[in-house]
Each structure stands twice: as structure tokens, then as C-alpha cells.
């Protein structure tokens, strides 16, 4: 959630400096991976232990930096409250979402952001925990690639809402990554599949990870990957199978109810048992019967594959409805598909494969490693974005409808689910009282008809409307969902043309100030020479902009009047002078000034290139278009 500020100052500054070192990161519930493209082929990068999978576990100590990965996971049963696993389930969530479902110590006064109490009297948010994981992956990639990264594509479940996406992006920033793009996991998987097998056609990607389920229907043709529809459940995954197994183990344990009670009472034991359950799950994929001696009690428990399948049947059933919905939204039936691709570790479970085969009437494809395929696709996408190729393109959709709460708590949908992104909706509001100078707007995401049943995104307060009689002021609010699935909002008063001021109160998540404070803290702890780095970055950015301007002027200088040209030259000279100095703020200011001065020029160049593109139409069409040309029209319906 943010106001329209896609032009984050200096956002693209680091990109040029790093010679195309870009990566894809799968920030998973149970495991995370980083991949890059080498010799045209995406590959996952191993850690010092030789493993590509980094357990998504962070262990906080009373002093010193936290442990991440296998080392952290080994601490889970000793220090369960200080060892955070499956943090992805907490991203972008509020206290009431996780109360009673979260095995950690929570700050119960923090409503909109989950705060976990860990060793050393510290409190950490899920964004910070995720940032620790990302930092390890960043270091791993920087070592493998021999220098600082220019950017990363981070994957998110397709069904993540705005708050969950924003939290992921914040974690990336906090880890010192330039987030090129948030990419939907099934889309990433489809990209990896499509590139690897050069397949074309319509595919369903069935992605059951540790904590989330996504189903996406894609069309792969001529290098364009179009997501036709997506659906899912952000609280369903392999973790739930582990928990179902724990329940089964407790029920079967010779220790009876006393054993179950002792597990309940001891979080360390519960975590240990959960790990044991996971191993049982893995073994049952190839064995028919598993015997274990559960930790924390005497006696053995036997679990057959049939027992397990019975225990997880309700979980498998929960995937049925999203699949139906996605197919329906795509306007297809299962028979129209050319294949079903399995992604996510949980799709190794044989019962799940049977369930998918039954749902789609065909055996699923699983020839790429379901653990790696998402990271591989993310790396491919990072390379595509960084190299600005247009022979390969992903067109994705927004998973949830965006709506506004109207009087009486009813939701009016303004952007329907499965709209291709980036997309926007414009709504015009008018005042209902004389002299009214403000509005409150409540933005929600979801498919239900009442706001209370949807996910609250934010409350906006619009202020500064010129006082007038009721119904005179007309406030135009634009809701834009960008290519990352993130929402941006702007408001303009139509009669005065003024930008109205908007205050955002995100329902879930961190404020910009909190993120900046965390960033500052991390710089201090990282002992990095921030000023030097900033100066370097601004110089690189200045060079880039000056070069781009020079090239543009050489090509299309004729589009400018002499006076306009003089103003541009002056702004460019000012920037060139600042670039030689030591003040990174001055360079940044002059970059912005030059940017403002060149906006009109850029616009004309784009219009020129568009009219060249349209020139390919037949004369007949052009004549008709000219003939039918009507006065200006407003795109969207305008209530009020």
C-alpha cells in the first residue's frame, strides 16, 4: 500500500553499477532458494553446506546476529520461542489473524503488525525475520557471482493480498536488495517449465507449498505467458499435513491422553514432534508403513499410508474449490488444458497426485524438481527484466477483487479479480454536505459482499477539498495495481485540479517510518560506509541519465523548441557539475530537476513512437477511426 510513488528516489540507482548480477529468490514457508542465470540456463546456488535449500528458520540469540537455516532449525526444540519457522504465514498479518495459531510469544498490544518476543528482550516483526533469510541468500549470491547484486525478483504466492506483498517487498529492502519485481510463484514455475521444455499451450500450475496453495491457469504462446486466472488459499500447505500427522500420532500413542497433554504443555517437544511428523510424511511417499518412537514418551506408533491419506483428505479437498473457480474465471474446462504442472514440496505426496489427476482428468507433469522450479523461473524473469527483452513477456493478473466500502458496509467492486496487471480504476466522489472538505475511504480486497468479510487494506482520509455547496466538489480517486500486485492511490479534486492530500492508515503492515528506522539500524549494524555508497550510487545514476538524455537528443532533438532545448541543456549542465562534487543530496536533487525538465520531451518521444506503431494499420481502419472520432470521454463509470 502506498500513495502513487513508483518513482522512489534513486530506486534504479544500483542497477547499472553491478553488471547484470540479478537473481531470483523463492522465499518459501519451509525453504528458501536463490537462483541465477548462467550461460543462458537458470541454476540454483548452493550454500556453504552444498545444499540449495535454505530452511526458512531464524534463531535469535541473546546477543550476536541471529542464526539462519539448518543451524537455526537445529535449535527449534531447545529454544522454541526464539526460533522462528514458517514466518511466511505471519507476513502482512495482524494480531487477531494469528492469535492462538502461532506458537511464539506475541506482543499482544501490537494490533496491525505481529511482533514476536525473542531472546535478548527484543521484538521482531515477520518482515525483519524474513529479511534475515533474504540477507543470507543475498550473501550467498554475492559470493557466487563475485560482487554486489543489481536486483532480485522475489516470488510470492499468487493469492497473496496487498499487505502480504508489501511486507515481502519491505523485507527485500531491509535485506539490502533492490526488488526488481514481486513475481507470483505459479507464474514463475510456468516460466521455468515453458523455457525448459519449450512447451506451448494452456497449463494449470498446481502449487502446494509449505504454507500456501495456489492454482493458476496460464496460456503460453509466442513467448508471451499470460495468466488467465488464479485462485488459492494462503493458509493451506504441507505444514498442515504435518500437524494432521501430529494429531494422528498423539491419538495413536500408547501414552494416551497424557502424552497429548504433555505435548501441548511443552512447546519444545511440540516442535520436535512436528519435525518427526514431517519425516514420517516424507517416508510415506515411498513406504507403505512407518514405525516411529515419538519423542517425549515411551512406546511406538505405526502409521500406514492409508492412515495418513485419510488424515489429510480434508486438506486435499480444500484445493477443489479454488481449482474450479480458476478454471471458470479462465473460461475453460479441464479438458481444454494441455497439461497440469506440479509445484511445491507437498505435491510429492502420492495421494495429492491422485487428487490432482482426478480433478483435471490427466496425470500431472512433475519432471522438474518441484522445490527448485519457482526459484529457477524467478531467476529467468530477473534476467528478462534486467535485459529489457521483449521476446519473452509475462502478463499476470490480480488475484483478489479490489473494492470500496459503501454506506451500510456493502462493498462496491472497482477492480474485479483476475484483471491483468498493471490496471487501475478511477472513481469520482462528490460531497454530500455543504462546506465538506474531506472524505474517508475504506479499501478492501476479497470476493465477499460485505466489507467485514473482506480483507481490510487501508483507510484513506482525503483532505483539502475546497469548501463548496454539497455536490459541487468532485474528487477523482485513482486506484492503481502495479505489475507487482501492489496498490497505489492518488486523489485529485476535479474542479480545482488540485492533488488532494491523502493520509493512509494501512490496516496491516509497517509504516514507511518504521521501515526507514529499521533500514538505518541495519546500516549501523552492518558497519557500511553509507555516505560513500550513496555518493557512488548517485554518480552512477547521474551518468546514466546524462547518457540517456544525450542519446535521446541526438535521435529526436527536433521535437523541441529552441527555448525548451536551452532549458534542458541548462539542467543537464547543472547535474554534470554536481556529479563532480561530493554531495550526494545535491546530485539527487539535480537528477530530479533534470527529470522534471525532460518529462515533456519524453512524452513527445513516446507519442511519436506510438504513432509509428499505429501506422501499421490499414488505411481503411484509420479513416474509420478519424471519421468516428468523438469528443473526449471518461473511461470508467463514475458514481456520485
Amino acid at each position, binding site marked *: 500500500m502506498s500513495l502513487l510513488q513508483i*518513482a522512489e528516489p534513486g530506486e534504479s540507482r544500483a542497477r547499472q553499477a553491478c553488471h547484470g548480477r540479478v537473481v531470483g529468490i523463492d522465499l518459501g514457508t519451509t525453504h528458501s532458494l536463490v537462483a541465477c542465470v548462467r550461460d543462458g540456463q537458470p541454476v540454483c546456488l548452493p550454500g556453504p553446506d552444498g545444499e540449495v535449500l535454505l530452511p526458512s528458520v531464524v534463531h535469535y540469540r541473546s546477543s550476536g546476529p541471529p542464526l539462519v537455516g539448518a543451524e537455526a532449525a537445529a535449535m527449534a526444540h531447545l529454544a522454541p520461542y526464539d526460533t522462528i519457522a514458517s514466518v511466511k504465514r505471519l507476513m502482512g498479518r495482524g494480531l487477531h489473524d494469528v492469535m492462538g495459531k502461532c506458537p511464539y510469544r506475541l506482543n499482544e498490544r501490537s494490533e496491525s503488525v505481529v511482533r514476536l518476543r525473542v531472546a535478548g528482550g527484543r521484538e521482531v516483526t515477520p518482515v525483519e525475520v524474513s529479511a534475515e533469510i533474504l540477507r543470507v541468500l543475498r550473501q550467498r549470491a554475492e559470493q557466487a557471482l563475485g560482487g554486489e547484486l543489481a536486483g532480485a525478483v522475489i516470488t510470492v504466492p499468487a493469492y497473496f493480498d496487498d499487505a502480504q506483498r508489501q511486507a515481502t517487498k519491505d523485507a527485500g529492502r531491509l535485506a539490502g536488495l533492490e526488488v526488481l519485481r514481486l513475481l507470483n510463484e505459479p507464474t514463475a514455475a510456468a516460466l521455468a517449465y515453458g523455457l525448459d521444455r519449450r512447451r506451448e499451450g494452456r497449463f494449470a500450475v498446481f502449487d502446494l507449498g509449505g504454507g500456501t496453495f495456489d492454482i493458476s491457469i496460464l496460456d503460453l504462446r509466442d513467448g508471451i505467458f499470460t495468466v488467465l486466472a488464479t485462485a488459492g488459499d494462503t493458509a493451506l500447505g504441507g505444514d498442515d499435513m504435518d500437524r494432521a500427522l501430529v494429531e494422528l500420532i498423539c491419538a495413536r500413542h500408547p501414552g494416551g491422553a497424557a502424552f497429548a497433554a504433555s505435548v501441548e504443555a511443552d512447546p519444545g517437544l511440540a516442535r520436535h514432534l512436528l519435525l518427526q511428523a514431517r519425516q514420517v510424511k516424507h517416508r510415506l511417499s515411498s513406504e507403505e508403513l512407518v514405525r516411529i518412537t515419538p519423542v517425549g514418551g515411551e512406546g511406538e506408533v505405526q502409521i500406514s499410508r492409508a492412515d495418513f491419506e485419510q488424515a489429510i483428505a480434508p486438506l486435499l479437498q480444500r484445493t477443489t474449490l479454488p481449482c474450479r473457480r480458476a478454471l471458470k474465471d479462465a473460461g475453460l474446462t479441464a479438458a481444454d488444458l494441455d497439461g497440469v504442472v506440479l509445484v511445491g514440496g507437498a505435491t510429492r505426496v502420492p495421494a495429492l497426485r491422485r487428487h490432482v489427476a482426478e480433478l483435471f482428468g490427466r496425470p500431472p507433469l512433475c519432471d522438474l524438481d518441484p522445490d527448485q522450479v519457482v526459484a529457477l523461473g524467478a531467476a529467468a524473469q530477473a534476467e528478462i527484466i534486467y535485459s*529489457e527483452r521483449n521476446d519473452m513477456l509475462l502478463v499476470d493478473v490480480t488475484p483478489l477483487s479490489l473494492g470500496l466500502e459503501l454506506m451500510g458496509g456493502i462493498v462496491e467492486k472497482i477492480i474485479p479479480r483476475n484483471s491483468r*496487471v*498493471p490496471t*487501475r480504476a478511477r472513481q469520482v466522489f462528490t460531497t454530500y454536505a455543504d462546506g465538506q472538505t474531506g472524505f474517508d475511504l475504506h479499501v478492501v480486497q476479497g470476493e465477499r459482499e460485505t466489507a467485514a468479510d473482506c480483507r481490510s487494506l487501508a483507510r484513506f482520509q482525503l483532505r483539502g477539498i475546497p469548501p463548496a455547496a454539497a455536490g459541487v466538489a468532485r474528487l477523482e480517486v485513482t486506484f492503481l495495481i502495479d505489475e507487482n500486485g501492489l496498490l497505489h492511490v492518488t486523489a485529485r479534486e476535479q474542479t480545482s485540479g488540485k492533488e488532494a492530500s491523502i493520509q493512509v492508515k494501512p490496516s496491516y503492515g509497517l509504516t514507511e517510518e518504521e521501515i526507514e528506522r529499521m533500514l538505518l539500524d541495519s546500516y549501523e549494524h552492518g558497519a557500511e560506509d553509507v555516505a560513500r555508497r550513496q555518493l557512488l550510487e548517485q554518480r552512477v545514476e547521474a551518468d546514466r541519465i546524462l547518457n540517456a538524455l544525450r542519446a535521446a537528443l541526438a535521435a529526436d532533438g527536433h521535437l523541441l523548441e529552441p527555448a525548451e532545448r536551452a532549458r534542458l541543456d541548462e539542467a543537464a549542465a547543472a547535474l554534470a557539475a554536481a556529479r563532480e562534487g561530493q554531495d550526494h543530496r545535491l546530485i539527487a536533487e539535480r537528477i530530479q530537476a533534470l527529470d522534471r525538465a525532460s518529462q515533456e520531451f*519524453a512524452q513527445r518521444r513516446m507519442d511519436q513512437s506510438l504513432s509509428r*506503431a499505429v501506422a501499421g494499420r490499414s488505411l481503411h481502419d484509420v479513416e474509420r477511426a478519424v471519421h468516428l472520432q468523438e469528443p473526449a470521454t471518461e473511461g470508467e463509470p*463514475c458514481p456520485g
Partner: protein
Amino acid sequence: MTSEEQTYFDILGLARRYALDPRELEERYRALSRQWHPDVHGRASPAERVRILQRATDLNQAYRVLRNDDERAAYLLRLEGVDIGAEEPGAQAQVDPTFLAEMLELREALAEAQAARDEQAVRAIEAMVRRRCEEARAQVAAGFVRLEAGDRSALADIARRLIELRYLRRFHDELDRYEEARLLDAQG
């Protein structure tokens, strides 16, 4: 040439008329996406990216409206100065009372069938609603043929059918929700 001055048909380089070849729409959309999708401009400056985002959203918006028969029809009417998008209280006046009566009957029939868990009856109602949608769409298409031949009296007919379609779609959504709820029940 700013986005406000262009119609969705202009954006996609299509003739402004109701009849549309979905394949042509798709191909134009794909060609323009290769030009304007933000990922193709991954290294553009922040200010350029704002402008590219604007183009890309215009394109997606145009595609979304034109691809859908009902939305394309409503949009064409709006270009002609007839706005059926706003759900004013007066809008109902344009609807044929016999149509409204029919909808009420259907609704009662559906409530009864659902209460009795008579799936066959529910499916029959669904088939009926689907048929009514198809009829209304055929009438919309016929209306545009008249309109595009210069008969502006067709505007009111088209508007009426589109409003009827809105009722029918809503009805259909309800049937769909019922079906989903039934599936959920079946899951226990």
C-alpha cells in the same frame, strides 16, 4: 495525445463498433504489451516508468472492457452519451415490468428449489438464465447493427437489454455462489 483523449478502441487500434474479432483483439493486445509492459522497460528511469505504467494500465483497461461483450456494449453507449454504468434509482424505470416480474418469479423458484435441495430444478433454472442471457446478447448485437446504420432509436433498446443483462448476471452469480457453498458442504 494523452490517455483521456483516446477511446479504448483507439488504444488497441480497432474500429469503433460492437462486432469484434476476439483473435484480432488478442493479437493487438499482445503486440502492444510487448511494447508497453513495465517489464520490457526494467531499466527505465523512475519518471519514465510512471509514464510507461500509465500506458500499460490504459492498455489493460481497454482490453478488459473490450473483451467482454456486455462491458464493450456499455462502453459504446457511454461514448454515445448514454450511461448505464451508474446504478441510479431511476435506472429501473427503463426495465420492462414484465421482465422484472419474470425475474421475481425465477428468484422465488430458485429459493424454493434450494430450500428443497432439488438440484435438478436448480440446474433447470440455471439453463433458463443462461438462455435469457444469450437472447439478450443477441438483441444487443442486433441493436448495434441498427445503431451503426444510423438509427439512434436503437440506443434505448440496447440500454434496456444491457440493464436486463445486469440482473441476469447477478442472478447467475448467485447460482454460482450456491454451487460453491454446496461443494463446500460436500467437503464437510
